[in-house]
Every structure is written in C-alpha cells, then in structure tokens.
C-alpha cells in the first residue's frame, strides 16, 4: 500500500524544503496548461454563437425591410 510521504501540511507545501520552487512551478504550469486548453475552446464557441445570432437577427431584419418595400405600390 502506498504511504503518505509528508508528516505535516507545511512539509508538503515546501516539498521537504529543497527544490520547492522547481516542483511547484511544474505543477503550476500543468494547471495553466490544462485549464487554458479546456477554457479556450469554450470561449471560441461562445463567441461563434454570439456572432451567428447577431447575423441571423440582421438577416431577418433585412428580409423584413425588403418584404415591406416590395409590398409598397411602385407606381
């Protein structure tokens, strides 16, 4: 069975005292890497849907105007 390697929280946070910075900076980079690559596509998708909704709205308004114009008697 694996056993816990640290006897206290502070020992864990400093990773036993030496190379604290090395170990935690790698895990920090890993966290940034994971969260960026999961969040970025979600933001792109949100942006896409916003743009497409705006476009659909504009197209609908445009076709409404056109149909009004064609209803008007021309002569």
């Amino acid at each position: 069975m694996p056993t816990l390697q640290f006897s206290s929280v502070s020992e864990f946070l400093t990773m036993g005292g030496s190379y604290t910075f090395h170990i935690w900076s790698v895990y920090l980079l890993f966290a940034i890497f994971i969260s960026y690559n999961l969040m970025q596509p979600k933001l792109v998708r949100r942006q896409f849907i916003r743009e497409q909704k705006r476009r659909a709205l504009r197209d609908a308004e445009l076709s409404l105007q056109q149909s009004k114009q064609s209803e008007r008697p021309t002569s």
Partner: protein
Amino acid sequence: MWLWFSKLGSPRWFYELSSKWLPWLYALMFVMLGVGLVWALLFVPADYQQGQTIRIMYVHVPVASISLACFPLMAIAGTITLVWKMKLADMVAKSVAPIGAWFTGLALASGAIWGDQIWGTWWAWDARLTSLLIQFFLFVGVIALRSAIESPDAAAKACAVLAIVGAINVPIIKYSVEWWNTLHQPASSISFDAVAPNPPEIWVPLVIMILAVYVFFAISLILRTRNEILQRERRAQWVMDLVARDQQK
C-alpha cells in the same frame, strides 16, 4: 467498413457523436487526474537520487510522450486529407497543431525545470532536447503556414505536406536517447526483469497520469474540432438550428 468510414468523415455526424462522448470523457479525466495528482504529489516515495523532484516526472513524462503522438496524428490526418479529401481530417489536422505546440512547450519547460535540478543546467544542446525544440518550431510553423495561405483548400494541402515531411522528426526524438550519447536519460519506466526493476509505487501512478493526460488530449482535440466544424459549416441548416436553439444570449 466503408460506410462507417464515410460516416465518420461527415462533420455533422462527428459533432453529434462527440456530444454524447464528452460528458463521459470529462468524468474519466477528472477522476484519473484527481487520483494521479494526489498519488504523485503525496504518496510516491522520494527517489534516492532525485529526492522529491521525482514528482516532476508525473507531469513531464505524460506530456512529453503525448507530444510525440500529436505529430503522427497530424501526419495521418494530412494523408487522409490529401488522398481522400475528407473534410473532417483537415479539421482534426488544424485542431491538433496548437495542442501539439502546447504539449511540446510544456514538455520543454518542465524538462528544463527538472534539468536545472538533476543536471545543474536548464538547457543543453543535447540530441533529445534539440529535436524536441525542432518539433515545437514545426508546430508553430504549421500554424503560421495555415494562417498565411488565404485559400482554405490550398492551406490544407500545404499543411498536410508539412505535417507528413515533419513527421520524420518523431522517430529522431524517440530514439535520440539511444542513437546518441545524450544528457537526457533513456526511458526506464516499466521494466519487470531488469537488474533494478522499478517498483509499482513508482510506475502505477505514472500510468494513471499518462492515461489521464491522454483523455485530456482527446477532450481538447474534440473541443477544438467541434469549433472548427461549426465555423466551416456555419451556413448549413443544422448549425443554424443549433445556434437558434442555444440559450446563450
């Protein structure tokens, strides 16, 4: 088989299928990442040479090994694009390039941080490190090439060719530690019959982390490919319906 192949090539079919897969993949990834990280950070015994910095291995090795899978995947997708002109393959090829650049970048960064401790230097012009740096530049090159060519079809072809040619670098990276005398150590993770076999306390969490990062890779690739599908099929009725159904304002 051919029916399945042509169905898989349909972006809409992929989009709908991946909608069903994603929740399961997310659940799998969070469970495995949770177990893997807790195990790697709290339970792996300190190495007699490296001490606590052995914990860096549980990020570096999965990321570096999967970064090597990205390029062949891009080359295969490029081949399918060139031979069968399958639209989905090019979408995958386009999506995998930035992910590959991220994986390679993190492999280099975590390796440099680790190297500073075990070798006493952040960087050396060693065969493994240099060939991995070349892979990073190749990914950046593929991304730049695609954005530089205006016509999507021409860009797809050019990127496919660069991906296929660039894939030659992958075996060089993989075997660099055996072909040349490198500072970087050869892979030594799972050996049962060697003189000094690695105990399961070391490699079981590593395997869990590798699988977790693979699932993460799959998720991020699927997410980016889905965006690419939406973007390219935005005038198709099914995408317009999807946008109209979306609750987001």
